[in-house]
């Protein structure tokens, strides 16, 4: 029993360990950021690598917690993401006065996500969800002196509290209707009655809120813009990825009985999300806000993939893997620039290529990957999402998705154009990017190119399915 406990919950335990290390460092004499950050980066790297070993399938606490190859892989993706963030946002992290706290919060959020992914039970899921979201609210507030930061945090905590209120109400109704909250027993009890659909709608609402699906997305942009860029990237990549994993798992396993219902829901939500997300992204000036809306549109595409039951999972996981690299690269460049010049507007990027060609190429690559332009991996990711969506033969649906790629292309090109083509009297001056950031950016760039072309990765994920 204890043996299982140690093996199956390995990744969670490692994270906890790191958190405790941080805690001790904090209550101990403390460390300078310059020394602490590298240590952390090493720890996270170790954690990431450790993720690949000693994995075992199984479940604990009477199905409350279960794990398998796919889940391990998903957790590894999240680990990788956190590691990359710790590298990419080094500039900001170095400056922040409360580095250990920040990481404690971030890692506990990560821990929450791990539990969430592994949760086999609505109670577990709820606890994990809260663990994954409350710390993020605190993280959002980490630019203590900035007004926007605290405003963002306020919006985050309140709307997430509201959404979890709705979620809980939904769960309670489900409990009332079926008498169980365990994923294993749910399918037997579900019959798609009106009462259950009401409950289910509330659940979807909560998922949609975290995944920022239109019309539950409104908090996203504000929080992204307000919070420090490390938090933003964490929100937009890690928490989105985790919630997507859970969402698709929840739909496919416990709620598969209600397929007809949630397929249509997904189709509707996907279409609205893609369109609204794109339309809002069109006219954004702040790069973080811009990326927020673009990520909303991306979620729309993820939903397209999810709708392809039962084969959607591979495409979704694959896409999120790529999305982690692309989006983090974009945020990384944005953070470097905003840290060194305090500029976060797309217009400030004009003429950037003159001064910082390296950053420009990385950002271009990242944006193309987000837009789904070959040969970047984003092309494949998006294509497989759309293909899975098309499996049900709804041409109009696929066409809408495909046409939305054009709108998104338009605003991604806006940034590229600003960097490469537009003239500017005082562009951002030459930036001396420190080595870790550079390393991380190159890592992302390489991944963006290779993950697509190395097609065995997709097959590997496919093989994890069964």
């Amino acid at each position, binding site marked *: 029993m204890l043996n299982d406990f140690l093996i199956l919950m390995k990744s969670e335990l490692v994270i906890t360990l790191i958190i405790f290390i941080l805690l001790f460092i904090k209550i101990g004499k403390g460390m300078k950021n310059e020394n602490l950050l590298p240590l952390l980066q090493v720890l996270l790297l170790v954690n990431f690598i450790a993720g690949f070993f000693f994995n075992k399938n199984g479940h604990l606490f009477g199905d409350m917690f279960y794990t398998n190859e796919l889940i391990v892989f998903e957790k590894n993706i999240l680990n990788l993401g956190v590691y990359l963030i710790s590298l990419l946002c080094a500039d900001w992290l170095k400056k922040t006065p409360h580095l250990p706290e920040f990481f404690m919060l971030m890692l506990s959020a990560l821990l929450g996500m791990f539990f969430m992914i592994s949760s086999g039970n609505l109670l577990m899921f709820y606890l994990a969800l809260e663990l994954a979201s409350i710390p993020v609210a605190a993280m959002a507030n980490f630019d203590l002196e900035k007004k926007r930061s605290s405003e963002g945090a306020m919006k985050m905590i309140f709307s997430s509290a509201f959404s979890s209120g709705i979620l809980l109400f939904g769960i309670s109704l489900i409990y009332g209707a079926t008498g169980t909250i365990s994923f294993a027993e749910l399918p037997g009890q579900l019959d798609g009655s009106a009462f259950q659909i009401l409950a289910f709608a509330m659940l979807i609402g909560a998922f949609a809120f975290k995944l920022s699906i239109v019309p539950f997305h409104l908090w996203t942009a504000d929080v992204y813009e307000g919070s420090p860029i490390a938090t933003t990237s964490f929100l937009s990549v890690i928490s989105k990825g985790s919630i997507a994993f859970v969402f698709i798992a929840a739909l496919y396993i416990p709620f598969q009985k209600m397929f007809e219902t949630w397929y249509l829901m997904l189709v509707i939500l996907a279409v609205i999300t893609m369109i609204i997300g794109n339309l809002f992204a069109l006219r954004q000036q702040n790069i973080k806000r811009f990326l927020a809306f673009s990520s909303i549109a991306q979620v729309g595409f993820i939903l397209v993939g999810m709708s392809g039951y039962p084969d959607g999972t591979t495409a979704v996981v694959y896409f999120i893997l790529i999305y982690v690299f692309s989006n983090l690269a974009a945020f990384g460049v944005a953070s470097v620039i905003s840290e060194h010049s305090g500029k976060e507007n797309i217009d400030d990027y004009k003429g950037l290529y003159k001064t910082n060609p390296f950053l420009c190429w990385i950002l271009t690559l990242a944006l193309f990957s987000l837009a789904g*332009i070959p040969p970047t991996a984003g092309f494949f990711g998006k294509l497989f999402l759309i293909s899975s969506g098309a499996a049900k033969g709804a041409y109009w649906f696929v066409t809408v998705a495909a046409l939305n790629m*054009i709108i998104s292309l338009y605003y991604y090109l806006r940034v590229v154009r600003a960097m490469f083509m537009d003239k500017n009297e005082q562009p951002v001056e030459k930036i001396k990017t420190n080595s870790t950031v550079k390393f991380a950016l190159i890592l992302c760039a390489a991944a963006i190119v290779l993950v697509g072309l190395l097609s065995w990765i997709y097959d590997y994920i496919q093989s994890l399915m069964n």
Partner: protein
Amino acid sequence: MNLLLLIIIPLLTAVAALLSRNKQQVRWISFAGAVAQLILSIILYCAFTKERAGGNEAEMLFEQNYALFPAWHINFHLGVDGISIAMILLTSFVVVAGVLVSWNIEKMTKEFYFLLILLSLGAYGFFISLDLFVLFFFLEIAVIPKYLLIGIWGSGKKEYSANKLALMLMGGSALVLVGILGLYFSSGHSFDLLSLSKIKIAEDTQRIVFPLLFVGFGVFTAIFPLHTWVPDGHSSAPTAGSMFLAGISMKLGGYGCLRVAAYLMPEAAHQYSNIIIILSSIAILYGAFATMMQKDLKYINAYSSVSHCGFVLLGIGMLTTTAVTGAVMQMVSHGLMTALFFAVIGMIYDRTHTRQVSEMGGLMKVMPFISTVFFIVGLCSLGLPGLSGFVAEMTIFMGSWENASAFHRIATIAACMSIVVTAVYILRAIGQVAMGPIKKNQSQLRDATWNEKLAAIILVAGIIVIGIIPGWLNDLVRPAAEIIMNKIAGK
């Protein structure tokens, strides 16, 4: 003959160009790569003819097939037939010329050549891939470099044009994507062109998918009324950009229309052929008339490209072997011709710093070489015998006339009329630019430099060779066209 080389060489060239130290290195590296590619494609042609002569009747030769995404039955499947060979030859000619013409680009040279080579890579891959997914992959690879080429090195309202071009082409490829997926799911999960060609796709599926694919590819080859990216795009693009745009990437569309849309969905091709014919006839005449009113040399050639590419679609729409052969010939011919035309316009622009026809005159006196080439390309464009344009257009006309119905007859005659209009606008341009009294400020201009001369000569050679001995091209393309047409005719 390993087709992978066709992709690897440009790839290596591009990488080498990125790693190179100074501008001169970049130029020579890209030139070397382009020439290597040219030689390779000529070798490919010889090997192909040898195989055929050796009695190898396989539909595609030099096939290679690697599993890429087994989960989606996507294979990296390569192979060539006569049509693709013709296209590859065209591409390699244009690439060499393009590299030469942009020799004295000083701004971000490395990036420029990198994108140029990348674009050509996309084209090569597109022409040799037999798997729809891979085909689509290469199709899109060929789009974005254009955006950057126009946006960064372009002139005039370049951002607008670049955006328009990228978005319209992406829109086209989006339709193509949906069409391909439609084929994939309606054919029992296959992206493979050859195996798809063996399957009969349900008629009602065809009725949905064919328009998607045809219009999608049609956008690339300026199908009316989705041709408006052509004038803006060409006029703002740098010389080599327009050369590649008109010479290569507009051909991707025609090739796709034929190889994917028409070939895989014969019934639909029959059903829609009349619409295609109407649209293309409109494009031919209307493009020609619109050209008459243009004052900017690049606009003239852009609109005439709309008109000439109309012939390609007309040939495909006519659904006779001869017409389709003609369409392919027209693609090759127009590719060479229009690339040359843009090259010459670029040369003239570099010297006179204007593209307004009315602001030039009597250039024959100061730059005889360039003006002579301008004459030749103009005459080719108006279909003078002995130059490639004539061969292609006549083949299309003869092929179209094989359809005996009054409708086809009228369409053909309408298309024929364009040869007069073409003569009008070409002669107006030539008469104004090369002939007439010379303008004062232009009496001191120098003639072409070695690289420009070489570029022009290469393309002129191509035009004349096709024009004087078209037999080889005919023998190359016709069998392939026959296979396609037999499929469409249901034989």
